[in-house]
């Protein structure tokens, strides 16, 4: 079969197509975005009629995927780690309903927070929901494990969590393709109450879920993803989860590892191999990308057990992603180092593009707010979050998708005036609309600025659900028409735009200012295509 050069994300996407996927659902989020993008641009996926549209948010994506599964077909939903928080209600309860067609939930974690607000470890969610988790170490495993994941999902009628991290998501390598499987036929669940979580039914189903979780820990078909690799030197035993295995292998070079190693790619992990490692080796080093999940499991109680080394005892740093040098140090190996970065090198943080509409919006906003003093603007997740940095220093929060609107409502309740929110168009339709409804219902004195660049900009310009709909959405939610103002953020309109902002800030009620100008990156790509 053909060999392809794929990002980890793309390997997952190609594997999903090849294993008979019928529907792909997602909301863009680094580092998961390329999974959907790959399937959207795949001619093969188009010919096969695979559904592959962006969803409004991760929750709607999760539920749509569950609906696809209801019809007996294979579905996938992909999101960044914090997206799983948004989808959590659907995710946890999909474990309770179980699935009909295979369902894979891909969560792409971002240790070191390259492009995120925290580094939560999605493996906790897998345990929380009692669903199996796959954690590949490289692109080929990512591809192969998708096939396994669909199998296990259908065997146990349970959704499967597929956990990757940034480094694998965005690293490219050769992947050998397998023979393609056919899509599943339409077939309703054999029990039409399977998805009805009334308490009496849910109690019964929960017992099944718990018992399946026990069975998974000893299912030899899938426990092959967890391997005991023996070594002569028992002074140390190593557990390597997912990607961390690569850093171990890097440090062992061509000679192989002299210590016994348990390589983990599937959870729940069979206990016998971990027990054997703990019994045979003097010390254990646990290498995992993210939280000390296995480390805590092996440590048990008391926490002072010195035999287990890892992130908790300082052998590895407590936060941030691993790399070959950190692992070398934990192994007691000397690792190289070039020269220090010279002092002349300055930091170069990301910044708004030259000519970006968000910048003009912030310039007007800063002037409109001059008389009120700083600290009055909540904001959200997107390129415009860069408005927190100089030269704008314009916003005072970035918490989670949609929080700008609701925090502004709460702060207005707390006596803050003015109370503003700055939110992007796509973020607004993701999770800002419900908050705006709250504001309308209580007639909160807030001003909501929707900085509409007609795309989902930060993740590379995906289609925004808000495009051409913002005015009617806001009016439909009950914002007075005369307080839905549209401005064009250009330097030449600066004074007029500032005046509009001043007027709406003064209005005692809910006002929305839509600051609309196409993202200059998207515009450039569009013009290039049109040429």
């Amino acid at each position, binding site marked *: 079969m053909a060999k392809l050069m794929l990002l980890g994300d793309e390997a997952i996407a190609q594997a999903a197509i090849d294993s008979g996927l019928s529907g792909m659902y997602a909301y863009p989020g680094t580092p998961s975005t390329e999974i959907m993008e790959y399937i959207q641009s795949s001619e093969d996926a188009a010919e096969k009629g695979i559904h592959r549209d962006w969803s409004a948010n991760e929750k709607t994506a999760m539920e749509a995927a569950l609906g696809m599964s209801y019809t007996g077909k294979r579905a996938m939903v992909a999101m960044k780690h914090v997206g799983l928080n948004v989808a959590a209600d659907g995710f946890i309860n999909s474990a309770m309903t179980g699935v009909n067609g295979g369902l894979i939930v891909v969560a792409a974690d971002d240790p070191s927070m390259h492009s995120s607000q925290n580094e939560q470890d999605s493996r906790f969610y897998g345990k929380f929901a009692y669903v199996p988790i796959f954690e590949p170490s490289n692109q080929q495993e990512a591809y192969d494990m998708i096939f396994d994941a669909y199998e296990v999902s259908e065997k146990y009628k349970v959704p499967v969590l597929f956990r990757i991290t940034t480094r694998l998501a*965005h690293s490219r*390598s050769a992947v050998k393709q397998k023979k393609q499987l056919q899509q599943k036929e339409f077939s309703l669940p054999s029990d039409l109450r399977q998805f009805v979580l009334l308490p009496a039914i849910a109690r019964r189903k929960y017992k099944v879920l718990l018992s399946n979780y026990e069975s998974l820990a000893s299912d030899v078909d899938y426990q092959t993803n967890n391997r005991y690799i023996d070594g002569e030197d028992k002074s140390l035993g190593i557990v390597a989860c997912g990607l961390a295995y690569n850093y171990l292998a890097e440090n062992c070079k061509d000679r192989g590892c002299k210590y016994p190693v348990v390589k983990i790619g599937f959870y729940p992990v069979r206990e016998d191999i971990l027990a054997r490692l703990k019994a045979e080796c003097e010390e254990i080093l646990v290498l995992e990308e993210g939280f000390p999940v296995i480390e805590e499991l092996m440590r048990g109680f008391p926490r002072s057990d010195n035999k287990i080394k890892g992130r908790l005892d300082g052998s590895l740093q407590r936060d941030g992603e691993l*790399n070959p040098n950190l692992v070398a140090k934990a192994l007691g190996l000397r690792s190289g180092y070039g020269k220090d970065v010279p002092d*002349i090198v300055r930091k170069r943080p990301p910044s708004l593009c030259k000519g970006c509409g968000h910048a003009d919006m912030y310039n007007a906003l800063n002037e409109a707010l001059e008389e009120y003093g700083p600290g009055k603007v909540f904001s959200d997740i997107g390129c415009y979050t860069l408005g927190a940095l100089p030269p704008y220093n314009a916003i005072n929060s970035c918490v989670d998708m949609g929080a700008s609107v609701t925090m502004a409502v709460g702060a207005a309740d707390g006596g803050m005036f003015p109370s503003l929110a700055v939110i992007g168009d796509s973020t607004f339709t993701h999770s800002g609309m419900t908050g705006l409804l709250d504001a309308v219902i209580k007639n909160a004195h807030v001003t909501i600025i929707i900085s509409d660049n007609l795309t989902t900009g930060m993740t590379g310009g995906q289609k925004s659900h808000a495009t051409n709909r913002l005015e009617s959405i806001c009016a439909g939610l009950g914002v007075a028409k005369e307080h839905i103002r549209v401005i064009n953020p250009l330097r030449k309109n600066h004074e007029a735009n500032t005046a509009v902002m001043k007027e709406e800030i003064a209005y005692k009620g809910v006002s929305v200012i839509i600051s609309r100008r196409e993202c200059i990156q998207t515009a450039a790509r569009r013009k290039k295509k049109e040429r």
Partner: protein
Amino acid sequence: MKNDIILSGVGGQGILSIAAVIGYAAVENNLYLKQAEVHGMSQRGGDVQSHFRLADKPVASDLIPYGEADLILSVEPMEALRYLPWLSEDGWLVTNSNPFVNIPDYPDTGDLLDEISKVKNNLIVDADTIAKDTGSVRATNIVMLGAASHFIELPLESLENAIRKLFGRKGDEIIDLNLKALAAGREQYKP
């Protein structure tokens, strides 16, 4: 054989197209490779790098360990220096001399070039001018690849084939332009 390369620049300068050319050439030579890229927030005018690892045996880590890069190929001079901890003792630093200034405290270019000259094996190339002279500033990246090609263990012919493949859809004129840029870059160093 192993060839560990750090590609560096500023988000939007297109270091990934250099990576794509090396990638195609590596595949043609049946080599193993791993290439870690930066996507997302940093792409907005921030510093970006790609770890590119080529070998005749499977590559384990997606990231290059400190002190093991054989080459830093930078399309921007300050960004070239940011990755010195990765450069091996005998490694080469090949950089464009033209700064990309998007921060208020960007250092003096002369001082930067002085600092780069302190690196044992360095090659500073005025890629913008060379690209302009060969036909288009947009081929600056390929000029840089040409200059660095002496330190990449791939036949020149494979890089040329890769350019034909990468720019194939854009027509013969663009292919020729880039092949010229590659050749002009390569002339910047005589082994």
